[in-house]
Structure formats: C-alpha cells, structure tokens
C-alpha cells in the first residue's frame, strides 16, 4: 500500500505539472460538450423549396400559400422553368422543387436526395402540406396511425446528445491518456529504472489506473453539472447508478488503453491504434445511426463496443429513469470488458 501511495503522488504530480495538458484535460471537454451538443439536430426545419406553379388556379395558389405559412419551409423565388429548377437543385440553393402542372391531378416533387434522410423527411412534410390543401378521403376503414413519445415527448435532441457526448468525452480522455502513458515511460527511458525497483506489476498498473480513473470520474461529474446548469438536464434515474456504472465503464476503457500502451513500441503507434479503436467505437455506438440498422455481422462487432453499451445505459438511466435492476445485464457486460481488458494489459505488460 505504501508503495502505491508514492506511485500515485508521482503520477498526479506529473499530470498536474504539465501546464499544457491541464486545459486539454478539463477545458477542452467542457467546451466541446457545450458546443457540440447543439450540433446534433435531426429535427429538420428550414427546408428550402421552390414552388413552380404552372397551373395558376386558386387551389394551386393556396398550396403555395400553405408552404409559405409552414415554419418547416422557406420558399425560394425564381424557379419558373426547367433550367432554373435543375440549376437551383444542383447548386444546392433549394432542397426541393414542387411543381404543379397545368390542369392535372398530380403534384410533381423533385428532391435533392444527396442526404437521403433529409430527403425522406422533406417528402413526408410536403405530403402533409399537400394534404392540408387537398384533404385525404378518410373512410371508416382507413387505418390512421398516431403516435406519442415516452421519456422525451418533445423529442429534444439535446436530452439525448448531452449525456452521450459526455460519455464520448470521458472515453477519449481515459483511453488516450492511458494508451500513451506506459509507452511514454518506455520511450523516455524511466521504465528501466522502475523495473529495477521492487514495484510489482500490480502496483504499477494500479498506479496508472487510479489517477486516470479519478480524473475521468471528476470529468463525468463536471459534465453532469454542466448538463444540469446549462442545459437543464437532470437525470430521471438515480445518481448512484450513474456514477457506479461510470466507474465500472471507465475501468474497462482504461484497461483497453493500458493494453494498447503495453503492446506499442512508440507513442505514435499507441496513438494511432487508440485512435482507430475510438473512431470505431464512436461511429458504431448507435449514437449517430441505429445499431439495429447495421448488417448482422456489424451488429455482432458492435456487441464488443463498450461505448455502445454505456451510451445506451446512460440514456436509459437519465431519460427513462432506469434503476440498478434494469441495467443489470449491461453492467454485467461492462464488468466482463473491464476484467478482460485489464487482464490483457496485465499479461502483455513486458516486465
């Protein structure tokens, strides 16, 4: 225990001595949390459309008025012929051109589908507007589907993104710091000196884990405070569950980082490998696109992704109010990761 104490003092002194690292550790994540949480807006609005009215009847003018009145749309002027329609679309000045041909019973819609998701939404909204002018015939047998959203009735993206980005930030912090640490001692040559001391492998690994673990948890706490103070987001589920699982999660991420560090020759290699893993983890976390939409083999790979498990867990605790009993299976998975990666780090530590 005494040995561990001295190792911890040394590690903390080194971390807090590096004046360039402090803002990177504590300010960069908070700034990113504040800024990036606003970026994730899937809610489509401000769709730019042009209405090319060839019909010029009262009904067609009502349709144009309906588009102008709808807050989802911004009507762009100047499209009155085929060439203009094509040019506006190609140059990205409009998302869609709505064309009402003379005297026919159809509305032609041309949508820039480079972004397929926005295109699909635009189509649905346009249909709604058309339906407001020409109401659908609803008989007794027409199936009408209505819906509501649980836990986040307004579908506020920030309530999802703030906790998720916080998870990503502590993941990057923990993984990069731990991945570079051991290999750094090796590169600057202090590793040999440590090797001749009575420090055991367990001391060494714990001495590396604990500081980053505490910093990660501290960052998590700061992030939750920011979420509450700035975004007004309060966890629906119990805080002990959040912190308890964060502790376990960080342990698994740090174990992975230490493993990367112990098998790398240089800091550069460690960084590249850590970067590769993190990009895979982040993009396949289900935060940006659903895991269930992936092909089956990719879904299997995603099961090995701690970020996927933990973002899902935090989301359920913070928004759906899940407690220990609800998250137990995920906790089990995280525990397996933590044990597995720390064991790998243990075995591959060249001493």
């Amino acid at each position: 225990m005494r040995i561990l104490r001295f190792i911890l003092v040394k590690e903390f002194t080194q971390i807090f001595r590096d004046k360039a690292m402090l803002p990177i550790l504590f300010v960069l994540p908070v700034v990113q949390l504040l800024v990036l949480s606003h970026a994730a807006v899937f809610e489509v609005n401000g769709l730019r459309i042009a209405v090319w009215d060839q019909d010029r009847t009262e009904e067609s003018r009502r349709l144009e008025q309906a588009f102008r009145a709808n807050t989802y749309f911004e009507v762009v002027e100047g499209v009155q012929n085929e060439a203009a329609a094509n040019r506006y679309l190609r140059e990205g000045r409009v998302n869609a051109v709505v064309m009402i041909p003379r005297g026919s019973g159809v509305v032609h819609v041309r949508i820039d589908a480079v972004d397929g998701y926005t295109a699909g939404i635009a189509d649905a909204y346009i249909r709604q507007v058309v339906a407001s002018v020409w109401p659908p015939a609803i008989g007794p047998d027409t199936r009408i589907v209505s819906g509501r959203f649980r836990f986040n009735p307004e579908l506020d993206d920030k309530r999802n993104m703030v906790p998720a980005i916080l998870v990503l930030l502590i993941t990057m912090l923990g993984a990069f710091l731990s991945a570079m640490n051991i290999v750094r001692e090796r590169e600057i040559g202090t590793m040999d000196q440590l090797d001749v001391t009575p420090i055991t492998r367990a001391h060494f690994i714990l001495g590396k884990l604990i500081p980053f673990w505490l910093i990660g948890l501290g960052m998590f706490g700061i992030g939750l405070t920011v979420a509450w103070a700035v975004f007004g987001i309060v966890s629906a589920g119990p805080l002990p569950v959040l912190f308890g699982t964060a502790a376990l999660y960080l342990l698994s991420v740090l174990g992975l980082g230490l493993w990367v560090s112990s098998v790398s020759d240089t800091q550069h290699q460690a960084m590249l490998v850590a970067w590769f893993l993190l990009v895979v983890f982040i993009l396949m976390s289900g935060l940006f696109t659903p895991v269930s939409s992936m092909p089956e083999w990719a879904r299997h790979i995603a099961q090995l992704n701690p970020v996927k498990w933990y973002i899902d867990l935090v989301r359920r605790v913070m928004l759906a109010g899940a407690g220990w009993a609800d998250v137990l299976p995920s906790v089990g998975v995280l525990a397996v990761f933590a044990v597995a990666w720390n064991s790998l780090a243990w075995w591959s530590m060249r001493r």
Partner: protein
Amino acid sequence: MNAIETHHLTKRFGGFTAVDDLTFSVRAGEIFGFLGANGAGKTTAMKMLTGLAAPTSGDATVAGRSIRDHAVSVKKRIGYMSQRFSLYEDLSVRENLRFFGGVYGLDDATLADRIARFETTYHMSGRMHTRVKELPLGIKQNVAFGTALLHQPDIVFLDEPTGGVDPITRRRFWGMLVEEAARGTTLFVTTHYMDEAEYCDRIGMMVDGKLVALDTPARLKQTMGVATMDDVFVKLARGGAA
C-alpha cells in the same frame, strides 16, 4: 562474503548467445569494473543481475538471494543507475527522491532523514525544488547516484554512469564512488573509460559473451605485459587471453 556470485549464467536470443556460461564472483565492498566492447554482453549480464531479464540457464545470487527465485527481494537490496540518468525530468529533485525512496519502502521519518542527508552530501540545498531537466548534466548524475543510494542498498549497479561528462566531473564522481565503497557498499560498474578502470579493485573483461579476464588492474597490466589499461583492453578485445 561475496556480494554477487554467478553460476554458469547464460542468456540466448534465438541462436545468438549473448552471455555464455558466466561464472565469477564479486566481493562485498569492492568496486568491480565490468569491461567489454559494445555488444560483448555486459549489458545483458547486468540486466540479468538486476532482475530486468531472466537467464536462459544458470543462476546467480545477488545480496545472498537467487535472482531466479527471489527477484523482488533482490531488487530491494540493489540500486541502479543507468547512463540515461532515468529520473523523471518533469519532477523536482525532492519529488524524485521521495518517489524512489517511497517505492523502496522507506518510512516517512527515514525518508525525510535520508533526503536531508542527501541534500548536504551532494550540496543540493537551494536546488531541491528544481526540476531535473533544468539541472546541468554533472549535477543530474550526482542526483541519479544519490537516488540509487537512498535506500542504502548492498550493491549498486552503474551502467556507464559517466557517459558524456567532462573529465573533472568524472574524477569528482569517482571520488564519490570510492568513498561509498569504503563505507561497505559494493559497486558494480560498466565503463568505456580506461582511466576509470584504474579506480576499480578488480576488473572483469567480457569478449563475445565470455569472461576472458578477471583480476586487479595492476596484475592485468603485468600479465599482459603492457603499460596501460587501454592496451589491456585492446589486446583482450582482439582475442588475446590473460
């Protein structure tokens, strides 16, 4: 009593034998110079003796304990100083001392006492809070030596401790080594400077993984019939035997 005894100590890397059947002993309290051309196997032998590498076959006792069976308790009894002065450059002198003293298990009172003694012995007052990277090379070397001695080891291994240092600083440094040996500490030193070899009580000379000579500097010069240690070295390294 012997501080170090090796018995057929051997280390192979694949087909290459870096240390070949090494058997010799180092007496307690002597300065033992370990010489050899680059690649002769000195560093590998030293790595085995300090527990950094495991022998392929054979064994050695260091401070009375087998390096095979008691690696950790051996480590507590030895000090190590390498040519890279592997201190933490971003930590101050005091922080380095506290860290290394602490991991060798010194209690707080002893640690404070030893650090105070270090401060006077090496004339470091006023520099204890300086970061190691800001110290001149000669001072860094003293700090590294003082750090290696902090837990009062029986044996200190010094791996080319004076690399890149000027002659005056080197002489002063060797003065410290002689004093320390007089207090009963065994010093096991590798070096490329033959004038330093003259300070040693005995010299072991490695060629191609084998120990080809082991004697006092004076007797080595006598048997080889040459005037300086330089000539002894060149003659042995080229394949002569003592």
